[in-house]
């Protein structure tokens, strides 16, 4: 049937996605995730590509390019988290607690179940209607333990009896987790996944520790779930999957019932998955899934909305989740339940079947494993080498798992690894471990699911079935990452999800560790919660709610909504290759058009070329440039944290007016600086490089010089040099002189000085300003204070302003020199005249006098010893002064070295 065919097509895609993912052991994984999503969306197109190995490589390339975008800092963060993973295990060694502790996220959901064992039935019935998602999640975690399994079996019944929706969800939880793992296996299969061996070991360790604990039944049960938690990366993928998968399926499969079922299943997994990563996340994911789900149902037609949803949903979910958290445990969360119900309704019929499947899977793992192994091999038919590797690894893994008695856990844990690995031989082993987990699902599903939705696919092609499942998983994986990243971003309170996506996408082990840290916190809270009735929130959580609400507010503001709509429209356009690019957008809350285009251009350039440079040169930047539409002349400067929004960028003619306005403004420098910076920003984002640009920079440089704002001046100067070198007209000489002065007086870099001097053209040397600057340089290098202060008085343009900053130093040098070489005394009047204290020598006596007084003050402040000679004239006692002169600390000195940034002064100036 058509459905089957689509399944096959999707399978190849998954492979691609997985390959990319495996590559993602490094930070770039985030991109790969996007890429995956992309492939999934455009299944039809890409399925063709799958056969070609060459194409898969481009995918990798994309990921690599992604790396560039992700800030390193984010990775480092993950590194810090690495420690936490081990910590948690050791920390939680005590019996039962381990499970909960080690898997903090699980703690929240699982523990309630464990505690409520007795009242389980009640719990289910009571919560069920409301809590579809919640309960399901809790149950799923429980599902692993044998004791609970019985209850699970009952579940299907419940489902059928009560509301179908609930049942699928719960089932899916358990099933989903299994299926996801299974799916993860397939993913690993396609390319020999090159998982780094080290990554494996860390993940495994936690498991073993947990396995020891499982002796306690609750613990053991938890461990199954916990394993998942440990491998947060993997679980996270699954959770997110729900939202993305739905859209995808809808696109390709639109009206097929089987697919709908899938969707349901996926939604259910979401709840579970979300819980895994972090307690907070669980709740969040919940909600996120809920909103997304309804939307999807409503508009199945709109295929591409998915990308926007995950991110937004996650944010919104976070906010909601946090606030509701308290109520969550005690009160059956009303929202999630409703939403989930609505979604699942269509699928009600199918749900019972699904429920049965999940039940079987957890219990039967070992058997399923074997079956699955065979299937996995069957898949590998074409590739003997891979097969062999798989076999070896599987054997190892199974034996190990047996020895530990944690077959279950192992599989779960390995899942993330498995997905991540690329095509390394080492990784193969990892891959197989995941396969174990996945296998059980498949094996069982055929047996009991004879009539499940999966069936048609399976019957048509046994091999294909797993593939399709894997496809889903693969998609999920990518989506999860996305959402996850979004989540992390919100957590860190920075809205630029870009950065944060990095760490999570890293090697599985690392990403797992990162979540762990959060989990630990959660666990602590979770434990207390359990004791107290699970309703109390910890302070930390509350503090987090603040973040989330903030994020939510942002997500909810009208502009943001508008952008999202436009984004979704874009997706509707559905240009075949675009989806991949679109994935970037969700991350950036800002207006994504330009941004994505740029990003995609960069990606393209980097991906297709070893030496990225060439490709970068070929990018058509013009096509990516913003054209502003803002008509307001005044605009405050705000550092861009996302792609510029054309509606807030002023076009050139407005900018000209703005410049005039600033030039004629009577306001203080801080205001002008702010305005000029915003003008510069608008110019930059629109890539205007003409006389206006030069004028703006010149204006700003002059203003900055007048107030001695060297930092700002230097920025302008360096830009101006570039602009001048491009042949744009301006006050070239004037600024060449400034540049010289700046180098001489403030940087004292001989090399720079030499280069700027040797660059001077003969004409430049004839220019008065440049001549003056050169003379100043000569005076400074020879220490000739007389010449210096003469030049100071005769400085053209704003040369004085730059020299101002050196005057103090020069005067001090002069005073030291004079005190050493003059004997016995030097008249103060002479010093005042020589050292430029009387600014206007040609004016009346008053100014002379004031200059003299000023000089006196200055000398006193610098420790000079003064005497009065017999004619009553003040003299500098040279010999005495030679040992007492010192350079006083500037009175306005501030700790950070820039007095213009002193708080008091700053406030005084702004108000």
């Amino acid at each position: 049937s058509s459905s089957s065919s689509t399944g096959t097509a999707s399978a190849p895609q998954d492979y691609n996605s997985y390959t990319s993912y495996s590559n993602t052991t490094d930070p770039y994984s985030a991109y790969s995730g996007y890429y995956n999503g992309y492939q999934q969306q455009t299944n039809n197109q890409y399925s063709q590509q799958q056969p070609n190995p060459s194409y898969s490589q481009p995918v990798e390339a994309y990921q690599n390019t992604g790396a560039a975008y992700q800030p390193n800092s984010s990775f480092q963060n993950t590194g810090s988290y690495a420690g936490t993973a081990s910590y948690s295990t050791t920390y939680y060694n005590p019996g039962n607690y381990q499970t909960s502790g080690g898997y903090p996220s699980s703690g929240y959901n699982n523990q309630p179940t464990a505690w409520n064992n007795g009242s389980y039935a009640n719990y289910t019935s009571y919560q069920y209607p409301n809590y579809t998602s919640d309960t399901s999640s809790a149950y799923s975690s429980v599902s692993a333990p044998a004791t609970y399994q019985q209850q699970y079996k009952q579940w299907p019944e419940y489902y059928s009896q009560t509301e179908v929706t609930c049942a699928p969800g719960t089932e899916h939880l358990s099933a989903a987790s299994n299926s996801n793992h299974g799916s993860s296996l397939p993913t690993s299969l396609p390319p020999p996944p090159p998982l780094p061996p080290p990554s494996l070991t860390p993940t495994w360790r936690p498991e073993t520790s947990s396995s020891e604990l499982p002796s306690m039944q609750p613990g053991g049960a938890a461990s199954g779930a916990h394993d998942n938690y440990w491998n947060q990366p993997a679980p996270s993928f699954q959770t997110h999957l729900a939202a993305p998968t739905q859209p995808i399926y809808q696109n390709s499969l639109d009206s097929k019932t089987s697919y709908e079922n899938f969707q349901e299943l996926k939604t259910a997994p979401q709840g579970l998955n979300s819980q895994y990563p972090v307690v907070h996340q669980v709740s969040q994911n919940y909600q996120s899934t809920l909103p997304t789900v309804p939307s999807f149902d409503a508009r199945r037609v709109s295929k591409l909305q998915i990308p926007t949803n995950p991110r937004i949903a996650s944010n919104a979910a976070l906010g909601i989740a946090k606030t509701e958290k308290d109520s969550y445990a005690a009160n059956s969360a009303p929202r999630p339940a409703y939403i989930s119900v609505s979604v699942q309704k269509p699928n009600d019929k199918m749900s019972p079947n699904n429920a049965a499947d999940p039940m079987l899977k957890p219990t039967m793992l070992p058997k399923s494993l074997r079956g699955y192994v065979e299937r996995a091999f069957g898949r590998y038919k074409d590739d003997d080498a891979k097969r062999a590797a798989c076999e070896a690894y599987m054997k190892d893994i199974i034996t190990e798992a047996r020895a530990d008695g944690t077959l279950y856990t192992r599989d779960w844990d390995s899942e993330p690894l498995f997905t991540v690995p690329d095509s390394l031989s080492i990784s193969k082993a990892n891959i197989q471990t995941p396969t174990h987990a996945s296998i059980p699902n498949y094996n069982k599903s055929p047996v009991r699911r004879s009539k499940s939705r999966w069936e048609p696919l399976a019957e048509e092609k046994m091999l294909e079935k797993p593939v399709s499942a894997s496809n889903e998983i693969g998609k999920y994986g990518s989506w999860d990452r996305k959402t996850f990243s979004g989540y992390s971003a919100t957590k860190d309170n920075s809205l630029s999800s870009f950065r944060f996506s990095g760490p999570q996408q890293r090697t599985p082990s690392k990403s797992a560790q990162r979540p762990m840290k959060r989990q630990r916190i959660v666990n602590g809270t979770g434990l207390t919660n359990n004791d107290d009735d699970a309703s109390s929130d910890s302070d930390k959580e509350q503090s987090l709610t603040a973040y989330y609400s903030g994020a939510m507010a942002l997500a909810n503001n009208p502009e943001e909504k508008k952008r999202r709509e436009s984004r979704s429209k874009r997706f509707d356009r559905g240009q075949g290759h675009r989806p991949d690019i679109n994935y970037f957008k969700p991350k950036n809350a800002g207006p994504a058009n330009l941004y994505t285009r740029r990003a995609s251009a960069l990606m393209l350039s980097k991906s297709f070329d070893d030496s990225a440079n060439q490709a970068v040169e070929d990018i058509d930047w013009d096509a990516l440039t913003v054209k502003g539409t803002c008509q307001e002349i005044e605009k405050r400067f705000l550092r861009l944290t996302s792609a510029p929004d054309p509606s807030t960028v002023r076009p050139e003619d407005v900018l000209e007016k703005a410049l005039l306005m600033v030039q004629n403004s009577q306001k203080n420098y801080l205001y002008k600086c702010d305005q000029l910076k915003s003008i510069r920003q608008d110019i930059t984002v629109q890539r205007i490089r003409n006389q206006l640009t030069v004028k703006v920079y010149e204006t700003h440089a002059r203003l900055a010089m007048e107030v001695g704002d060297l930092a700002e001046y230097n920025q302008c100067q360096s830009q101006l040099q570039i602009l001048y070198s491009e042949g744009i007209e301006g006050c070239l000489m004037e600024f060449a002189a400034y540049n010289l002065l700046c180098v001489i007086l403030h940087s004292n870099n001989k090399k720079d000085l030499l280069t700027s001097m040797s660059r001077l053209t003969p004409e430049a040397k004839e220019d008065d300003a440049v001549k003056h600057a050169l003379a100043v340089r000569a005076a400074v290098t020879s220490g000739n204070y007389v010449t210096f202060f003469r030049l100071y008085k005769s400085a053209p343009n704003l040369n004085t302003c730059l020299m101002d900053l050196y005057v103090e130093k020069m005067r001090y040098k002069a005073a030291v020199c004079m005190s050493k070489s003059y004997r016995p005394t030097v008249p103060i009047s002479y010093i005042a005249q020589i050292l430029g204290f009387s600014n206007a020598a040609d004016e009346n006596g008053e100014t002379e006098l004031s200059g003299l007084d000023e000089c006196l003050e200055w000398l006193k402040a610098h420790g000079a010893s003064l005497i009065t000679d017999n004619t009553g004239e003040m003299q500098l006692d040279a010999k005495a002064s030679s040992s007492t002169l010192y350079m006083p600390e500037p009175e306005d000195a501030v700790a950070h070295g820039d007095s213009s940034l002193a708080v008091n002064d700053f406030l005084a100036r702004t108000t």
Partner: protein
Amino acid sequence: MAYLSMGESHRRITDYLNRFADAINYQDGDSLARLFSVSSDSPSLLSLADALNVFQDANRLIKQSEKFSQFGEVVAPFFRSLQCYRLGNLVDAYGAFEKASNAFIQEFRNWESGWALEALYVIAYEIRVLAERADRELASNGKSPEKLKGAGSFLMKVFGVLAGKGPKRVGALYVTCQLFKIYFKLGTVNLCRSVIRSIETARIFDFEEFPIRDKVTYMYYTGRLEVLNENFPAADQKLSYALTHCCLSKEANIRMILKYLIPVKLSIGILPKKQLLENYDLVEYNNIVEALKRGDLRLLRSALQENEDQYVVILFLRSGVYLVLEKLELQVYQRLLKKIYIIQKQKDPSKAHQVKLEVIVKALKWLEIEMDLDEVECIVAILIYKNLMKGYFAHKSKVVVLSKQDPFPKLNGKPVAS
């Protein structure tokens, strides 16, 4: 290009491959080095390049036999580089050569002994030279020259391969010198510091152990760095080392060293003989030395001022000695004052140690240099302050009172106090 038959091309290529394989098998570093020197334009390599252009499928030859295919990663890109070089496409030639070098470095890393150091030297040299030429080509095409920068980072990698215990470490200084050349050319001399630090502080390196050739080059460049820092004693020491160890037959090298050593020596009060300047064609310093001897400020200024001889000034600016030479002005003043003092002494020994400011102004006027009393007073104060003159200045009477003992102390190898 004369007609070249396929057979002949084939023969030449296999011949090269055989020589390459032999050089590696017998660990013959010199032969291997010769096989890499693209820019040497040696006849054998040029003919090989022609053969490669005729026989397009050299890669098949490499893959054909096990003997050659193991070097495929080195030889295949090298062939491409050679081809491009022959066709004048230097940018691609550089790119391919870097690829070949990279592969070679990987191999080199695994060899215990340093037998292939010679070949590595050639590679380091070729990398730099090809990058320079490629940059020239890029610049002429209006593109941004970036290959030399890339060569710099590649050589840093090579340095990392050599910097370790074992016999290969003696090659590190050669690579360092190539890096210096690149950094000086790029004007990013501050990048030298990290390399210098590892050479001078790492225990694995014993400076005396390096080849003399590299030591001289190293001292030359570090001396130049010291000139830029105006650390004259250190510059003097390093450049003198380079001069005394430099092979006498390398006149061009000696001239390069002297170009920096002479200003350094001048600034610590040591004047060169005229013969030296003439022997090594350093006549641009003639006037400066003369000005120092005579206390002729005008001559010094004209030597350093653009109107007279633009070329020389640009030369000084480019090489970075301009600022050093400019500082000689104080020494010229000192010489002038000393002359006045000597003349006064001849006239009236009892009053010789009192020099009136007016006299100095008059002397400067004879030199056609207009300076008023304040300026001269300032100069005198600075001379006393910097210990170029012993004594004091009496402001009231505008008289320089010189010390009766050694009023004009000689620098004798010490720099002027700052």
